[in-house]
């Protein structure tokens, strides 16, 4: 049955646009190399609607020069087909090469963002320092997906990304919390946000007006692990899924919105602020799946001396009594407040299916929790003991 393909060149009978589409998924070097396959393929690569500069590691000047020449010649030799998607994955192993080479990257980016770019993935770094994100990216009207990591994001005054639906920013530095907000304000139709390990150089908090200014009405998913700067929860009120360092991004007197659509949430960095935790739970009426961690997902939190002990809320948060199906407590140390929280949930979560308690050593309080009454007849209590490599100093 496959004898047709065995002897015949099936692929070349497909239209040019289909062949170019296949080539758009591979690194540009390989697309260019297809020019030698046969006469049919000699010029196809010039119409491939992508520019994929992948896995380039530059540590000597000669290499760098040849790489530079290559990218410029590709851009010049291409025809007018717009570049719809682009990947830049470059590492300068020498800061001198980085300072020499990066201005060229900026020029390449500037030329492609003007002409219909829809997807951009950029991870360009060098030893010793972060490079600055080319700001022309922040006014690319056609961009739908942006994925950047390892940059310093500064030097911009306005952001216009009217088509952006997916934003991933990782391991990057902002001057202050305001700049992060400014970035997001320019993404009015954003649906999916991943903001991991973003650092702010300034400790300043946002003003009330600044907090009010951000509204991400189309946002469905927000994941912000290891991002500790001040951030308005109100902006995230429509999400279905949320991961956030709650006691770090929240500042006193911030408004906690009602998260009507939130069904799945990971709250990290609770830092034993039980009052805040209860307030948040009271504002998540439909929450079904929750994961709680006193510290980050690297380890347990530090207990401040004046943190209060757990006090049972006046009325049971609606999500706990009506909707909560799974609950996971990470880095559980059997501290009094944690125990009382676990018991409270077991006592009041009527449709709870699984309570999972993850701890470093086998827990002395295991028995106490196992014996505690569970209001949900189908609730399974699981203890998960693990060793982890990164340990924060535990000051309990």
């Amino acid at each position: 049955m496959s004898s047709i393909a065995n002897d015949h060149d099936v692929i070349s009978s497909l239209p040019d646009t289909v062949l170019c589409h296949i080539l758009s998924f591979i690194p540009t070097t390989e697309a260019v190399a297809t020019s030698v396959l046969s006469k049919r393929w000699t010029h196809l690569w010039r119409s491939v609607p992508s520019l994929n500069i992948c896995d380039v590691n530059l540590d000597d000047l000669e290499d760098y020069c040849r790489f530079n020449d290559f990218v410029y010649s590709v851009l010049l030799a291409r025809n007018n087909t717009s570049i719809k998607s682009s990947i830049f994955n470059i590492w300068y192993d020498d800061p001198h090469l980085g300072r020499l080479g990066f201005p060229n990257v900026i020029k390449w980016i500037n030329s492609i963002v003007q002409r219909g770019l829809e997807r951009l993935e950029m991870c360009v770094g060098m030893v010793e320092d972060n490079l600055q994100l080319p700001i022309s990216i922040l006014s690319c009207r056609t961009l739908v997906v942006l994925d950047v990591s390892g940059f310093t994001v500064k030097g911009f005054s306005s952001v216009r990304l009217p088509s952006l639906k997916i934003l991933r920013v990782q391991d990057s530095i902002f001057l202050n919390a305001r700049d992060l907000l400014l970035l997001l304000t320019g993404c009015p139709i954003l649906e999916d946000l991943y903001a991991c390990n973003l650092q702010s150089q300034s400790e300043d908090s946002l003003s009330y007006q600044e907090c009010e200014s951000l509204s991400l009405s189309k946002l469905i998913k927000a994941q912000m692990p290891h991002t500790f700067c001040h951030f308005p929860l109100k902006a995230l009120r429509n999400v279905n899924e949320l991961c956030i360092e709650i006691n770090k991004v929240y500042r006193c007197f911030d408004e906690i919105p009602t998260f009507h659509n939130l069904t799945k949430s990971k709250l990290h960095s609770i830092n034993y602020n039980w009052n805040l935790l209860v307030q948040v739970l009271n504002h998540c009426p439909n929450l079904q799946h929750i994961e709680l961690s006193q510290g980050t997902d690297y380890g347990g939190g530090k207990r401040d001396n004046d943190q209060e002990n757990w006090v049972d809320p006046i009325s049971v948060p609606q999500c706990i009594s009506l909707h909560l199906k799974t609950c996971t407590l990470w880095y559980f140390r059997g501290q009094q407040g944690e125990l009382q929280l676990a018991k409270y949930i077991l006592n009041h979560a009527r449709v709870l299916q699984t309570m999972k308690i993850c701890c470093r050593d086998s827990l002395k309080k295991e028995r106490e929790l196992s014996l505690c009454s569970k209001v949900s007849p189908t609730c399974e209590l699981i203890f998960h003991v693990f060793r982890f490599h990164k340990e924060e100093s535990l000051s309990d």
Partner: protein
Amino acid sequence: MAEEKSQASSSKMLTLKASDGVLFEVELNIAKEMKTVQAYIDDCEDIETIPIPNVLGKHLAIVIEYIKKTNEEYDAEFEKQWNMDDLQLLLLAANYLNISGLQECLCKAIAKRIENKSPEYVRKVFNIENDHSPEEEAKLRKEYKWAFEGVDKD
């Protein structure tokens, strides 16, 4: 009257006839995902058997199954089942039948299998005959030197 007609059309079955004579009965809404078939139906409303001259029964079966089951999970696993020859023929079928989702899935799958491979390997899996003269090929390799360095030995 209009209601009856729309009820009838939603459960209406069509027959597709592959190039090797194999017949497939499919629901109208499945067949409509193939834009080529849709165009055929638009032209001749009462047709019941539609010839698909370019596609073998084996591949038409896979295409129909894809249309019925496609979702993120299914697509991720879909391409793993087929060898390179089948992938190419399926892409030819998807292109002829004009099914954009399947075309996209197959283009990505084929790209994945030629990624990090030398031009010699790509020629082999695609059965491409090299009609470049040695001089022409040498010239191309020289012009974009960077593109020809550091590729996996197959």
